[in-house]
């Protein structure tokens, strides 16, 4: 642990004395990339963060959106990549725990979890399979025990995550606007540490996460205890109802050091604390370790002297520990004591605001070497290709994963995992639709188009349920930011996301940046992840399975955009080509039209067309209805059949329309000047594609179903 040159200078200019040993530890934790965002903070400011639904308050760890009738939803996203790559069960579980406490700190009850999981090639890499199985088990163990449903997410495999894991967890909370915690503190208020005891687990975790993963530092991985977390949730919400909480913050990366300095800085107060008052798991913990331990299931609460006995009584009911560790002072200093001895005395804003860095960027050289088309196309029959794709780990049904998560608890889950988005009912009669999306294959070839694509795809997914996007969260995951080429990919992604957010009027209400996602094998592909929240004022579109003679309409244009597609990468093992690019005008028009058609109840089902292209999206519909389809690709585009089938162009929706509504639907799409085409009907027991008059692909639905539903489990069990 050593400070960089500019940090040393910053310390020298501001503190004008030598730092104590504890101060060094505190600053090293808080100024790590993980906690300080030193490389990214300046650039994150470009994202639009306000909007009609956004509620902004001091010191919130989660985004807050007004959903009307006196209710709010909160949302946050985090990752736990390094820990999950070392110890997947505990790493993934504590990732869930951390994001939940961010939701709780606003004073809202967590009502749903989503996770984006990424691992290496599970078909050939047994270690990747081990990581995958155990990360899923860790999430299930934690979320299920808390009674917070895990209702959606995505799972993806790519060799760029070899010996690594991306575990992103998003959580949504719900509550009354009047019960939101309005963070404030008065001089003399007590600073309490509530929940689990502080131990040696997770010491130095945030620094561990701010470097490439080289060793397996297991002691830097935190230990999960969902039972304590459940008790904390109930105790905190009871304390909130009793108005015992002036301000609150979760203890996450950087432990007490971060929580104390950040809450003091955001409220403009000073905090004096005594490490002897912290309840410990092991008695021989040094004061420095106490300050930077990242033991889980801990909350920092500021309460008035008057309410202290009430909050103690609540903690006693739930048998969780509550220690008054310090006091609120006027002086805006972070003062750490060990009995009478001062260990650290620094201005809170000096600690909380680490010096930021301007990182150089340069366009990666690999981008100029990307080939445009595969050299030799394999002459496999298209039905064989479709079968292979349906069984491929990235496309096959993730039922094996979702089945391990309790996705029903809370009885809000209207649309369950496995559909385009997940839908929760809210207490005011409205519904919330949520989806998270990432696409490293697209982002590797074009980080800007790729990031916009993830964003648009998440929007499309919530639109398919009839929801209007009202907010987004982003999680930007890259390799080492000190490498100008990696930093360039970060900048391209964030600029793309900003452009799209602005043009769609969707505010960014939360997010996170995670750098240093690399191993000895190199950095991961750029992996921005976008979560979109949509609000449904009336009832959601509950997809009905297609039946015989239902008409298939494809909205949106299919272009020669196969770069980063599953077809190129999984079938041809080819990395290259043009990545799908979002046309913002078309995107808006199509979204608006689909929402209108849904609100007029003219559609039986809408399915997003994305990974694997039209062929996969239609197969999924056929599988759900156990019915075949007959589609003429001439109506899709003039491109060769395989390109129409597997292009991953954005802004496309497949509409399932009953014959009686066909005219209405077409009229509205024409009126809105949408690019659309009637491409075929559902019929028979074969997934059938023709080109002009020639059949080009035929696959029995029951065969497709078997491949799609059972392949992932087979890979996991048999390798």
């Amino acid at each position, binding site marked *: 642990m050593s400070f960089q040159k500019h940090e040393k200078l910053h310390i020298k200019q501001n503190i004008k004395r030598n730092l104590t040993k504890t101060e060094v530890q505190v600053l090293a934790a808080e100024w790590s990339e993980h906690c300080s965002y030193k490389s990214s903070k300046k650039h994150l400011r470009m994202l639009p963060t306000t909007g009609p639904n956004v509620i902004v308050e001091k010191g919130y760890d989660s985004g807050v959106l007004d959903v009307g009738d006196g209710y709010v939803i909160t949302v946050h996203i985090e990752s736990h990549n390094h820990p999950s790559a070392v110890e997947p069960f505990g790493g993934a579980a504590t990732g869930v725990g951390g994001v939940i406490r961010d939701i709780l700190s606003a004073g809202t009850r967590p009502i749903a979890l989503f996770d984006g999981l990424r691992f290496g090639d599970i078909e050939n890499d047994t270690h990747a399979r081990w990581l995958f199985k155990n990360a899923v088990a860790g999430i*299930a*163990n934690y979320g299920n*025990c808390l009674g917070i449903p895990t209702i959606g997410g995505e799972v993806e495999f790519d060799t760029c995550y070899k010996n690594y894991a991306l575990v992103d967890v998003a959580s949504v909370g719900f509550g009354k606007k009047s019960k939101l915690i309005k963070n404030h503190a008065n001089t003399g208020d007590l600073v309490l540490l509530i929940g689990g005891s502080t131990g040696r687990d997770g010491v130095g975790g945030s620094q561990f996460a701010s470097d490439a993963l080289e060793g397996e530092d297991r002691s830097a991985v935190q230990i999960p205890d969902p039972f304590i977390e459940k008790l904390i949730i109930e105790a905190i919400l009871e304390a909130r109802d009793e108005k015992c909480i002036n301000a609150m913050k979760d203890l996450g990366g950087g432990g007490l050091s971060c929580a104390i300095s950040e809450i003091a800085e955001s409220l403009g107060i000073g905090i004096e604390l005594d490490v002897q008052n912290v309840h410990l798991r092991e008695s021989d913990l040094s004061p420095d370790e106490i300050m930077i331990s990242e033991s889980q299931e801990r909350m920092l609460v500021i309460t008035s002297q008057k309410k202290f006995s009430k909050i103690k009584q609540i903690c006693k*009911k739930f048998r969780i520990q509550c220690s008054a560790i310090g006091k609120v002072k006027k002086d805006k200093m972070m003062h750490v004591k060990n009995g009478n001895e001062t260990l650290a005395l620094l201005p809170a804003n000096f600690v909380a605001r680490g010096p930021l860095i301007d990182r150089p960027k340069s366009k990666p050289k690999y981008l100029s070497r990307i080939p445009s088309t595969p050299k030799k196309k394999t002459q496999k029959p298209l039905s064989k290709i479709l079968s292979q794709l349906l069984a491929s780990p990235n496309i096959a049904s993730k039922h094996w994963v*979702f089945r391990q998560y*309790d996705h*029903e608890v809370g*009885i809000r889950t209207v649309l369950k995992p496995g559909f385009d988005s997940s839908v929760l*009912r809210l207490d005011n009669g409205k519904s919330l639709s949520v989806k998270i999306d990432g696409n490293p294959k697209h982002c590797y070839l074009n980080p800007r188009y790729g990031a916009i694509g993830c964003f648009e795809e998440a929007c499309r997914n919530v639109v398919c349920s009839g929801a209007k996007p009202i907010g987004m969260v982003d999680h930007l995951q890259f390799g080492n930011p000190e490498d100008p080429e990696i930093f360039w990919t970060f900048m391209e992604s964030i600029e793309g996301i900003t452009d799209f957010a602005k043009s769609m009027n969707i505010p960014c209400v939360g997010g996170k940046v995670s750098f240093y996602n690399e191993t000895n094998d190199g950095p991961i592909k750029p992996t921005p992840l976008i979560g979109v929240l949509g609000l449904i004022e009336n009832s959601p579109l509950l997809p009905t399975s297609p039946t015989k003679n239902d008409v298939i309409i494809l909205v949106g244009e299919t272009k020669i955009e196969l770069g980063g597609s599953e077809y190129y990468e999984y079938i041809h093992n080819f990395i290259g080509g043009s990545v799908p690019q979002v046309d913002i005008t078309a995107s808006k028009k199509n979204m608006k039209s689909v929402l209108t058609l849904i609100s007029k109840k003219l559609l039986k089902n809408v399915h997003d067309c994305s990974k694997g292209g039209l062929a996969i999206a239609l197969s999924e519909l056929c599988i759900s209805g156990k019915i075949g389809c007959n589609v003429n690709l001439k109506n899709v585009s003039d491109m060769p059949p395989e390109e129409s089938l597997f292009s991953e162009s954005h802004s496309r929706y497949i509409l399932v329309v009953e014959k009686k509504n066909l005219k209405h639907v077409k009229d509205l799409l024409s009126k809105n000047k949408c690019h659309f085409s009637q491409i075929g009907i559902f019929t028979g027991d074969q997934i059938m594609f023709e080109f002009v008059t020639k059949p080009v692909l035929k696959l029995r639905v029951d065969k497709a179903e078997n491949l799609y539903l059972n392949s992932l489990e087979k890979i996991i069990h048999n390798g």
Partner: protein
Amino acid sequence: MKVGVIVFPGSNCDRDMYHVLTDVFNLKAKFFWHEKNLPKNIDAVVLPGGFSYGDRLRAGVIAANSPIISDIKKMAEKGIPILGVCNGFQILVEAGLLPGVLLKNESLNFMCEWTNLIVKNNKTPFTNKLKLNQKIPIPIANGEGRYYVDKKTLNRLKINNQIVFSYENKVNGSVSQIAGVCNSDGNVVGMMPHPERAAEKEINQIDHKPSSLIFESLIQTIGVKN
């Protein structure tokens, strides 16, 4: 007419159960923390699902030693209807109020999925409005839901008509595909699937009526809000 919903540390279906009892079926319900006493005027008791004590040691075993269990035992003797769902079932079994044990699922995984129940006994306070052999679409969500009893006890359960629900298909390896049982008097019922997750139209797109009948049976037994 009041239903007591018992809350243990780690219960997590308590609010769901309360919502269904009160908002959907208009029953009066009240939460009781596991360290409190149950008042005498309670008409029925529900032990909701969850992970009491984080499933430590064995699902339900610590909660089965909670102070409130002695009151519940007294009520069971008096013939008051008592329903345990999921973890509530595990607690009733561990408390000795119901026969058998619940073991880890055959898949060794937590399983959250929809399944069909078959009504095997429609004489209990929670099934009297259901037809014998009626199907109930309902979700399960558990890691330790495999019901087990030895052959002798199984025979006794069959003779006494104590098997209340069975799964239509093989789900988790339960003996005789048992999903729910009752005590010999029939007033204490335990079931692994979650009726509170299946009794409303918005969250049960298959058919919410059969699960509703479980709650309507209770209303038939104890009457509605007065």
